[in-house]
């Protein structure tokens, strides 16, 4: 589990910008606008006022979660994550959230933005309705630990249960396990998963029934079930044939809509259902 950020604002906020300003004045050019240049304002990044409404919860002080609003000046190139950084680094250092790569690859910063699950690092502020406050909440269905940080353990427990690793049989080949392009293509979509939990925590079945495996676990099972090199499909299909397995899916498509990687999650679940039926009859 990644630890919450604790960067004090002095290091990267004030001091950082002062340093860069100094560096810019020392070396001519750089990112600093030239004097008298850019008269017409061409190429200037537009700035705007944003109200960020964050769901805060400090277990040591709050008896229940509360909303906190921040008025920020942000730029056209900024994402929701930048706004959260601005709050954390310049306003309130106690704001807690996960983020690692900040570029939509690691899957750490899934959160509920304006009521839908998104990665904060992939949502540009300018694409949202700025007339209203932008609400940022922790993802639903997992226990909130602090502010936007949830306990991901139930999510990963489901993930581990479907055995997300290659299971082979027979002698190991001397070189690599060869697979045709067509066979590889079969499960390509589900290899894209970054385990951000946006799908599972958008699933209404998961909200009410925490025992449900959830879309992410099924997607990752799909990745191996349809892999021609894998020999553990029967095991995985049997696990997902559980009362809390794929049959719990109500095809509401929330998961497909939430996936930041564009995985056709509901389709993958349907394919697993079909595979179980095909195996039984």
């Amino acid at each position: 589990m990644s630890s919450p950020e604790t960067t004090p604002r002095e290091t990267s906020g004030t001091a950082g910008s002062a340093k860069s300003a100094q560096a810019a004045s020392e070396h001519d050019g750089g990112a600093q606008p030239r004097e008298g240049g850019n008269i017409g304002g061409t190429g200037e990044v537009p700035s705007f006022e944003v109200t960020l409404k964050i769901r805060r919860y400090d277990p040591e002080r709050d008896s229940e979660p509360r909303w906190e609003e921040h008025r920020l000046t942000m730029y056209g190139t900024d994402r929701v994550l930048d706004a959260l950084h601005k709050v954390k680094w310049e306003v309130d250092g106690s704001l807690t959230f996960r983020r690692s790569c900040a570029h939509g690859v690691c899957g750490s910063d899934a959160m509920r933005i304006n009521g839908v699950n998104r990665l904060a690092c992939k949502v540009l502020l300018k694409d949202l309705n700025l007339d209203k406050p932008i609400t940022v909440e922790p993802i639903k269905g997992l226990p909130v630990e602090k502010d936007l940080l949830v306990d991901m353990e139930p999510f990963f427990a489901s993930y581990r249960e479907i055995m997300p690793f290659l299971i082979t049989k027979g002698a190991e080949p001397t070189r690599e396990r060869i697979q045709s392009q067509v066979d590889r293509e079969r499960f390509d979509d589900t290899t894209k998963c970054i385990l951000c939990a946006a799908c599972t925590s958008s699933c209404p079945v998961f909200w009410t029934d925490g025992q449900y495996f959830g879309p992410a676990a099924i997607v990752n099972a799909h990745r191996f079930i349809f892999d021609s090199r894998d020999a553990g499909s029967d095991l995985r299909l049997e696990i997902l044939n559980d009362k809390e397995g794929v049959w719990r899916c109500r095809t509401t498509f929330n998961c497909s809509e939430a996936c930041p990687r564009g995985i056709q999650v509901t389709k993958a679940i349907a394919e697993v259902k079909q595979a179980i039926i095909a195996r039984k009859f």
Partner: protein
Amino acid sequence: MSAPEQTPGGSYAPALETPRSPYKRSRSTRPNWELHGWLFMRMSGLALIVLVFGHLFINLVQGEGIHQVDWGFVAGKWSSPFWQTWDLLMLWLAQLHGTNGVRTVINDYAERDATRFWLKMALYLATVIVLVVGTLVIFTFDPCADPTRNFDFCSAA
């Protein structure tokens, strides 16, 4: 035994919104019917499209339409084993399809175990009553039971 270690201020936990119970999968020892339930919903759904729309067409559109439906019309239909089978099939499939649908709704929405159990018991009781009474009517329907009706075969018998 020493008390389990707690984080500072650990007593806050109950105040937290508890969206779900802790992760603990109970491996069901009972046979799992979910696969069959899921398949039944799709199969019965397809059959019901034919059965229900066939029923509606025969009763309400064909011939004199809605005005033809009376005691005699029903008596005429149920004198044929074909329509008896049709109606029996429609009754059972529709009732079980509906029951299974409501069962999943109860499973999805009832949060307490006791609530879920009793709602399902009520559902199953209603299902059994409808199936028993409906089946009974289809097989024991007596066209001569209505004294205002005078079919030829009633007096003959």
